[in-house]
């Protein structure tokens, strides 16, 4: 057994423990019966970020071994965003942030639900750190792409990141987990293709909520 395999198997084990930790923290939150609790929020948020990072690690490991393939299904996008916002709501509330979503009625998307959920959860995890009070999930059909965006009302991405994206779409990250998250999102977007067209990501500032806006474009 080589080191990456050992690492992957240990990560699975860590994820099982972490799963119980996350559920137990949620339980504690229920028992406390308070609207907003920053300490609980931090616990939930960090535990969920750990979980997202482990999923990213496992997925990158599989991509590296050529084992990760997409399972493209037809998705009711509104329901998809609804589930994701419900999933993140308790954590966000404890941090004093509201999560909402917007979607065109009856919008249908074609993507790997599980992979895309992982990507968006990890982007929300980032958003919760930089947002002032709101996060908005948005879905629309534009230029023949399904565009899923995550907007916040924070200070936005540094100008350097926005400028860098056009030059080096898929360049491996140099440092920092935000970039790693974006790198993973970009890989996953590219794995979604329809005929000749592939998916991609876009970073922008001052969109719907005035802060950063990360969007996934899926053909």
């Amino acid at each position, binding site marked *: 057994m080589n080191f990456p395999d050992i690492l992957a198997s240990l990560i699975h084990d860590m994820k099982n423990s972490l799963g*119980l930790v996350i*559920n137990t923290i949620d339980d504690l939150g229920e028992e406390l019966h308070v609207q907003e609790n920053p300490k609980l929020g931090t616990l939930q948020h960090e535990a969920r970020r750990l979980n997202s990072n482990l999923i990213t690690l496992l997925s990158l490991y599989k991509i590296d071994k050529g084992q990760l393939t997409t399972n493209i299904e037809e998705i009711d996008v509104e329901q998809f965003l609804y589930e994701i916002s*419900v999933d993140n709501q308790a954590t966000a509330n404890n941090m004093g942030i509201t999560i*909402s979503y917007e979607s065109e009625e009856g*919008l249908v998307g074609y993507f790997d639900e599980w992979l895309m959920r992982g990507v968006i959860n990890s982007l929300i995890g980032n958003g919760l750190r930089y947002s002032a009070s709101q996060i908005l999930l948005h879905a629309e059909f534009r230029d023949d792409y399904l565009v899923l965006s995550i907007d916040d009302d924070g200070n936005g991405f540094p100008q350097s990141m926005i400028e860098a994206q056009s030059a080096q779409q898929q360049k491996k990250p140099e440092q920092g987990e935000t970039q790693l998250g974006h790198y993973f999102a970009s890989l996953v977007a590219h794995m979604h293709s329809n005929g000749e067209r592939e998916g991609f990501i876009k970073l922008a500032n001052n969109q719907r909520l005035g802060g950063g806006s990360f969007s996934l474009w899926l053909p």
Partner: protein
Amino acid sequence: MPQKPSGKHSLQTRKLKENFVFFKPGPLENRLYLVVDDFGDMRSMIKNMLMACGVRDIKLARNGSEAIEQMEQERFDVVLCDYNLGTGRDGQQVLEEAKYRHLLGLGSVFVMVTAENTRDMVMGAVEYEPDSYLTKPFNKDFLKTRLEKLIAKKHNLLVIEEAVEKRNYSKAVAILDEKIAAKPPNCNELRKIKGNILVNSGKLTEARALYQEVLAIRELPWARLGLGKCDYLIQNYQQAIDEFQRIKSQNPNYTPAYDWLAKSHKRANQLSEAENILKQAVSISPKAVPRQQLLGEIALVNQHQEIAESAFTKAVQHGRHSVYKHPSNYANLARVTADNHDGASALLVLKQIDLDFNNDPKADFYQASAESLIHEAMGNSDLARASLGKAAELQKSFDQSEDSDCAIELAKTYKNFGMEEESVELLKGAILNNHTDEELMDEIKLTISSLEMDEQTLGTIDSIREEVLTLNRKGVELAKSGQLDEAAKLLKETSTRMPANRTVNLNIALVLLMSMEREGANPNMIDEIKGYLARVAKADPNNSTLQKLYGRLKIMMAKTAD
């Protein structure tokens, strides 16, 4: 609950929730739940989540056996089952058994709970799919939304499932058309269900049009698969192979395409291609028993003993707790073990049948049949003859249409003992009784070639089939010209030679019905017709002619009641 967005979008959010309330107050609460997990903390975690959602009726099971026992006792509305259940059945096997044995109601929801590393494993299963997958960890709010959606969806499809269950396919399609016309977000899901119903009820032209309509908008594997199935069913195997190949190259993890590709290659007599495809499929998803079984059977014909041994070993091993457990896999594994290793190890494999099957005559038959050959090879002639006698005795007691696989198995054994005549007789009987079953005819052709029998000795399959066709045609012509008694006499004579032949049985029932319709209802004749139809219903309950004849019989029965 998430914040409702302001402005034009808030409407939809509200509408979504009203839908849930619309069909039944408290869509989650008043239902019966089963939580299956081998891990105590997880069981109580999920139970607490459900209770926090207002659910009161929750049963728990620690493993697959307990889950099945509970499902035998009660009809659960929702089953939340972990894939990984330690030793014994896994979650997929629980699902397969529950569906196969109809332990779940039509409106029941089955959710498979997985960890990341088991997700791919579950996805490659052959026939039965859960209603949804949930990846750990998930929280209460997420579980609630997901279950609300699933229950609403099931409720929406219930009328269709009920119609399908009663084999009222046209009604099911009519309901689907009405729903599709409203263009809901799950429109393609409805089209997928409609396609399946059309294919299963033999409406291939309509099915093809539907799949092409979907594919014109977007390349979707299930639609391409449906198109390929239509080609397969009209015996256009090359076209079918092209369709399935296309899915496989675009979606390398979509295992149904592999299974159909292998089937098509097999029908097109391209056995090494079929073996290759199945080898790829089992490397993606090794636990599917029918796939391992087919691989083993084809590898045997191709004389790839090592591959056959590995495939039958896995078919036996993964089949132990599965509804796909079949004694032929044990028999084949034993024979291939005798070839690759020695007789003593082969007999050990057969011993396993005693442990894994409980007084099942078919299992005893396969055991005896394989045992006879292995004993013979080991020089135990007396034991070999005794086993062969036992196998022959058991085979005679089986249904000749349903259990034609046993006839073929025994024919192979006879041939290996040099009893050519008995072997040919059995194969002839299998053809006479099942002359319209194309796949069985293939099986017999394969057997003939693998036994190095001359097709001539069989009087050729085609001429035997021709004989049955001629007799049937004669009977029908007599009936058409009004000579109903003569028709019935000829067909009944034919039937004594091939009692399980579906066409003959259906034709006798038809002629008797025609004579009652002409001369009035007659209770004795009604019983007689019921007998002939029952022979068909046992082997082929979905047969459309059978359903029509049952309809005409009902009218006659109503007349005797008057």
